């Protein structure tokens, strides 16, 4: 018997009237709260008290696996700008900020045809275990599914997992995911919880040298994932309040593949996704055909053809010349020539640059010197110049304004040259100094370096910029053999993450592998440990406030901005969605 997958649709309050909400609200809320866990109730409290924005509430609630219907109901009552968005999974959640192009949900599109996409070329071979770049994860996403989907609004949505929740002691050490039934791999076999277990064992096994180890190290150990009926139970090394993000599209290596997968993805690209990989030509392109047996919303188009471009300027030209329908993930600056003639689709992200100053080397040994440098930057102006304002202000910690756990009561650092001068004088460096700034050659980074160079000039600090390509800049990426990690002052690129865990760890912990600032602070290390294990947003916020204040004071790294991307399409191409990580969802894309 053929099992037709049932698409879960959460009821969204159809009545937009606030009165109805107000009347119904307490009755329904009261009923619901009786069945909620303590953490869930706490989250609702935070939201009702106004400590969480609607957007942050929806995001937080999604991590905890709270009922979609209730979340939608609450969110819709919070304010009235909520819209309905759908993910590739087909589940409907109420949330504001989404990146589904306008017109996504109107009128049923006519099936058939081909959609053409231009994007960055994958930099290495495509293997779910090894992939580490945008081009690669875009290809993976078409073919595969994740347990959960992390939207660009930071809201988690169901994928292969229908629902999830902290179980056991409910302290975030044990998480249970219920696996969707009726999901089929491209070769026709049914997906089982065993495939999920094998996938995560493979990623967490140090012997496989998976790229996902940077996420799972200290979080998940091989063998601690168990199938239990239709459920998969993860027992973590330590409580982790953000674990559902770590198995989402954010952790792009975690697509669910068959349990006997043998590192042969390019020849046998078997996933459960909406598209089947038809042909893959390194550095040139990939073509996909519609998966007629997909469990979620089946793609509108019959075919999707990807063309890989070596650089952004070429990608933009590709769209202009009509070679592609969508130019995916273009920087704000790079997409400028497209304004007017093409439709933008903003991808909010927490991607950023880190300007580090080595705390163990002169002239930055004194924290006042580091503070002085940070105080010279006119951040709003930098954002205006580099991103036309389409970026969030950074406050010298990984806590981007978009994260629900960010404590926004911590004062934003602003330009203050007088204070900078007096701090520098207090540090005994009132005459300034010469310093070399190593910057990676990536997008706007060289321009950012130029702006930094000019900003510190009034302090008498004379910066010499050295821009290096990725190969040279990362070097061996171990201390002593890498300009990135060894330079006294440097700028490196970091991509988007749905939670700040990675940003808080490797670049700043005393034993962090990417600690280019050579920052060693046991108070900080302790705080981060507390943050990782905090399960509810209130306790996360208590810790994050302390972390934000500590980092502002120490300033090992300047976080000046968190920037957004844009995908551009021909005006008649609509309906495609994008995750913050950069995955492109084409299932609902349509032309005309």
């Amino acid at each position: 018997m053929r099992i037709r997958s049932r698409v879960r649709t959460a009821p969204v309050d159809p009545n937009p009237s606030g009165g109805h909400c107000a009347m119904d609200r307490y009755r329904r809320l009261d009923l619901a709260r009786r069945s909620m866990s303590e953490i869930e109730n706490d989250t609702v409290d935070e939201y009702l008290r106004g400590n969480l924005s609607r957007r942050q509430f929806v995001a937080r609630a999604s991590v905890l696996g709270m009922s979609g219907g209730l979340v939608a109901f609450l969110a819709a009552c919070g304010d009235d700008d909520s819209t309905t968005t759908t993910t590739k999974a087909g589940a409907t959640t109420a949330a504001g900020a989404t990146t589904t192009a306008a017109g996504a949900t109107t009128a049923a599109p006519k099936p058939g045809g081909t959609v053409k996409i231009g994007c960055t070329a994958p930099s290495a071979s495509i293997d779910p275990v090894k992939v580490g770049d945008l081009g690669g994860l875009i290809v993976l996403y078409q073919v595969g599914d994740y347990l959960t989907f992390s939207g660009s609004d930071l809201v988690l949505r169901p994928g292969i997992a229908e629902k999830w929740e902290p179980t056991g002691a409910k302290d975030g050490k044990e998480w249970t995911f219920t696996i969707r039934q009726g999901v089929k791999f491209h070769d026709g076999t049914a997906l089982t919880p065993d495939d999920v277990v094998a996938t995560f064992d493979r990623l967490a096994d140090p012997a496989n040298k998976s790229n996902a180890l940077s996420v799972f190290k200290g979080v998940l150990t091989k063998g601690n994932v168990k199938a239990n009926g239709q459920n998969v139970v993860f027992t973590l090394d330590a409580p982790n309040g953000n674990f559902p993000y770590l198995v989402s599209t954010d952790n792009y290596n975690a697509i669910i593949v068959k349990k006997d997968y043998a590192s042969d993805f390019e020849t046998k690209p078997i996933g459960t996704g909406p598209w089947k990989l038809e042909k893959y030509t390194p550095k040139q392109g990939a073509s996909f055909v519609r998966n007629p047996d997909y469990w979620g919303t089946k793609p509108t188009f019959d075919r999707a053809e990807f063309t890989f471009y070596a650089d952004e300027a070429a990608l933009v030209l590709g769209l202009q010349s009509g070679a592609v329908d969508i130019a995916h993930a273009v920087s704000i600056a790079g997409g400028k020539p497209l304004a007017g003639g093409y439709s933008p689709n903003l991808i909010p992200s927490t991607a950023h640059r880190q300007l580090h100053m080595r705390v163990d080397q002169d002239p930055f040994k004194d924290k006042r010197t580091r503070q002085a440098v940070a105080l010279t930057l006119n951040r709003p102006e930098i954002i205006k110049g580099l991103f036309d304002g389409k970026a969030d202000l950074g406050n010298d910690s990984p806590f981007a304004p978009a994260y629900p756990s960010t404590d926004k009561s911590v004062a934003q650092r602003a330009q203050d040259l007088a204070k900078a001068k007096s701090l520098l004088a207090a540090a005994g460096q009132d005459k300034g100094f010469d310093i070399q700034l190593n910057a990676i050659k990536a997008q706007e980074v060289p321009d950012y370096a130029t702006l930094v160079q000019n900003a510190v000039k009034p302090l008498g600090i004379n910066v010499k910029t050295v821009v290096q390509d990725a190969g040279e800049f990362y070097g061996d990426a171990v201390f002593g053999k890498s300009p990135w990690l060894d330079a006294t002052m440097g700028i490196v690129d970091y991509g988007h993450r749905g939670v700040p865990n990675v940003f808080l760890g490797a670049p700043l912990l005393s034993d962090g592998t990417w600690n280019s600032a050579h920052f060693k602070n046991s108070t900080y290390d302790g705080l981060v440990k507390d943050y990782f294990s905090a399960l509810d947003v209130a306790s996360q916020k208590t810790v994050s406030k302390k972390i934000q204040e500590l980092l502002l004071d120490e300033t090992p790294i300047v976080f000046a901005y968190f920037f957004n991307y844009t995908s551009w399409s021909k005006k008649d191409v609509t309906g495609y969605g994008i995750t913050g990580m950069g995955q492109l969802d084409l299932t609902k894309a349509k032309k005309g």
Partner: protein
Amino acid sequence: MTTAVPYPPDAPPRRRLLTLRTALRSPVFLVGAAVLGFWVLCALVGERFAPYDWSATDPLQKNLSPSWDHLFGTDRLGRDVFSRVIVGARDVLTIAPAATLLGTVAGTAIGLLTGYLRGWVGQVLDRLNDSFLALPFLLVALAFVAARGPSSTTVVLAIAVGFTPIIARTVRAAVLVEREKDYVVAARLRGERAPYVLVAEILPNVLGPILVEFTVRLGYAIFAVSTLSFLGAGVQPPSPDWGLAVAENRGFFQLYWWPVLFPCLAIASLVVAINLVADALREATA
């Protein structure tokens, strides 16, 4: 490989002063020299005459189109393009001549040796030379920059390394012709040692083609500096270098043509000027 040199230098000795005077009278030479002179002046004192500080950024004044305030408009960081074009002559007019000179000296030395020596030294040098020549110049320079990390010094060395075998080949061809001539044969019969014959007898007589080659290479060096900068392997930001400016602003060419077009015109005018000078010199020596 002698065939690749199209101009067997048969210029009789001791006519160099005369040729220089002939060249000076040619209008082509004068136009070229005037443009070249203008850019040299800009490189030397341009910073003092530029209306704005070439490095001053102002994100709020970015991408302004040309106006009386900003003759050539402003770039993506709000810097004055006119001032940057004026000062932009500096890097290229330092790097290109230095690289060409270095390449010419090294190439001349190698060319003299390989052209004159018959033994295994000549053979080995010849093979090395050929293997380098078998690589497109640009790739040699690119790999070299990748190996050493981009900086002005690296670009000088890269271009010099790339030029050396090319110049060596020209010199070698000239030497091959000269060494069979009577005056060299006579010197050898007199019992002069090789170094003397090379430096005192042959070198003065191959200076003509070397000078021409130098000017031609200088034009190409400027082209090369710009191209390396365009490919991101040249001069470092925030230098106002022209090639770098084109590379940095190329993505916005169709929106904001001024930060691309003006540096392009500058590159073109400079290289054309040098080529005119080189051409006039060659005509005069031929």
